[in-house]
């Protein structure tokens, strides 16, 4: 059909086709388009670069004058020269510990049920839809959940506005992330491994425990790390739960007392500093933001590296 068309039109399209194939002229429009697309990508990544440079430039004074003092001082919203981030760092670590204890086992177990036990059942399908929807719920809604349930309704267990309540709110927030990433990791484990284990007489639990989970461990670990970094960066839910925005008076409390007392966290400290006026506080805010940003970028890079490093091709 194509041949007859060329014949009928007297060979003009054929000639222009030959010409375009042999002329060697570069496709200018195509090149420009490619450059625009690359520009869009570089622009997106450039924001990250500008952000880091701007924060570094703003906080340079602190890093040259009192880097250790800044990292080890408490929150101070009245005097920028004495302000630091220590309480924020400590609070964030404590929150992450709660999240690691609550959300990660729970999320992984849910993923195991979905991938290894439930399969294509209706219950599994509904759970998957539910988890995907939970992943899209705005973070502040988890703050409301934390305030209404973990602070008020479960007051006798969490002691009100404590690290524990904040950690539970963050756990609910990252639970879908853990479930989704762990499910993906489990799904990547080939059937033959399960069939091998079941074939030699292992129970389902033994198959999961000794064969599937170890094979999926790197993927689950990546999801875990990403979930923790998400929890470390969230401000809205814990602010609603009632994180302290000013100085936290801890005194000589024991660890347990701190776990059941008022708390703060890194994003909350940044929020408190960002609301103060004046250049001195801009510097402090930039320094605090840089600390959080660098820590989170490092954690994420480790996670991404882990995934790429241990991504097994079966």
């Amino acid at each position, binding site marked *: 059909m194509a041949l007859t068309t060329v014949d009928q039109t007297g060979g003009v399209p054929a000639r222009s086709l030959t010409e375009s194939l042999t002329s060697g002229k570069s496709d200018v429009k195509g090149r420009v388009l490619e450059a625009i697309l690359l520009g869009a*990508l570089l622009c997106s990544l450039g924001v990250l670069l500008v952000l880091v440079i701007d924060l570094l430039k703003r906080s340079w004074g602190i890093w040259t004058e009192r880097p250790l003092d800044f990292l080890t001082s408490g929150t101070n919203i009245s005097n920028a020269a004495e302000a630091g981030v220590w309480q924020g760092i400590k609070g964030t670590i404590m929150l992450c510990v709660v999240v690691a204890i609550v959300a990660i086992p729970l999320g992984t177990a849910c993923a195991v049920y979905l991938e290894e036990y439930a399969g294509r059942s209706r219950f599994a399908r509904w759970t998957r839809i539910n988890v995907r929807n939970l992943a899209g719920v705005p973070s502040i809604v988890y703050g409301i959940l934390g305030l209404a349930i973990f602070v008020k309704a479960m007051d006798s267990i969490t002691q009100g506005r404590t690290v524990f309540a904040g950690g539970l709110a963050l756990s609910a927030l990252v639970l879908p992330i853990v479930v989704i990433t762990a499910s993906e990791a489990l799904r990547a484990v080939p059937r033959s491994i399960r069939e091998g284990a079941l074939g030699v007489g292992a129970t389902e639990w033994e198959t999961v425990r000794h064969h599937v989970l170890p094979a999926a461990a790197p993927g689950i670990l990546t999801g875990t790390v990403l979930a923790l970094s998400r929890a470390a960066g969230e401000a809205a839910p814990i602010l609603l739960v009632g994180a302290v925005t000013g100085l936290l008076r801890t005194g000589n409390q024991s660890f347990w007392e701190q776990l059941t007392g008022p708390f703060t966290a890194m994003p909350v400290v940044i929020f408190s500093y960002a609301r103060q006026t004046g250049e001195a506080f801009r510097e402090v805010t930039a320094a605090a933001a840089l600390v959080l940003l660098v820590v989170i970028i490092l954690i994420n890079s480790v996670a991404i590296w882990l995934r790429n490093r241990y991504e097994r091709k079966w």
Partner: protein
Amino acid sequence: MAVAAPAGAGAIVLRTATGRRRRDRTMRWVFRLAALMTFAVTITIILTLAVDAWEFFSKVDKSVLWGQIGWFPRRGFFDLPTLIVGTFIVTAIAMVVAIPLGLGAAIYLSEYAQPRVRRILKPVLEVLAGVPSVVLAFFAIAFINPNIVRRFFERADVFNLAAAGLAVGVLSIPIIASVSEDALRAVPMSLREASYGLGARRASTAFRVVFPAAISGIIAALVLGVSRAVGEVMVVAIAAGAVGGALFHFDPLLPGQTMTAAMAALGFGSDQVAGDNLAFQSLYFLGALLFLMTLLLNFVADRLVARVREEY
């Protein structure tokens, strides 16, 4: 499973030991319980929001919800259009930034980039997705507003919706880019090969063959981007100003409040409006509205993504 071993000397007993079977059954229940917990979270969220939102809605004088001068919860003005317009302005500005950049990045990564370039740039994009919103909120007031918004619009306020919108846009880029890149890469190679085989150039292949084939996934990416922008809290709470309330206006260069910013103003830490008064309950009402909006958006996106999966 439990094959009864025939009686007789030397027969191999295939029945599993009871202890192992019991442990297997227990663990199955443990895992099922974990799956049920995700429903517990959803149901608790819905119940909490529904009960308190309804309490607010039944107590409040309906006339203060519409057509007032603005949203001033402590003075009894709960003008919803103020917040809806604020949310709309911020989301629209965010999408003007995020859609071209996110889609451009996705098309480049999926259709143009060399595998080596892709291996380096894709993770950087994922790192951008991890930037905490409170950090970007500070960036909005310290950098974006003075260097971008106020450079072009001198009359812009120290806090304004435009700067917040730009920063929210930056936060929405990674989700748009990664979801639409997945959609583009899910288009089978044979479609591209057919297009090249017909003599199409790379640009025609990318935009006339691959892009239309991935359109439902790309729309899903945009919907998720909108959902992300609508739900963003910290940026609007810090950079859009208007802590106590906001006047009704359509001007992106003035301070304003979105639904999330209004919730932040009502509920954050020491600023929390104490007690069980109407102002505090409006927090739950806004939460319920926000939840419904994002739920709807995510549901639509979910359907669209499922359609992509079915096709290929």
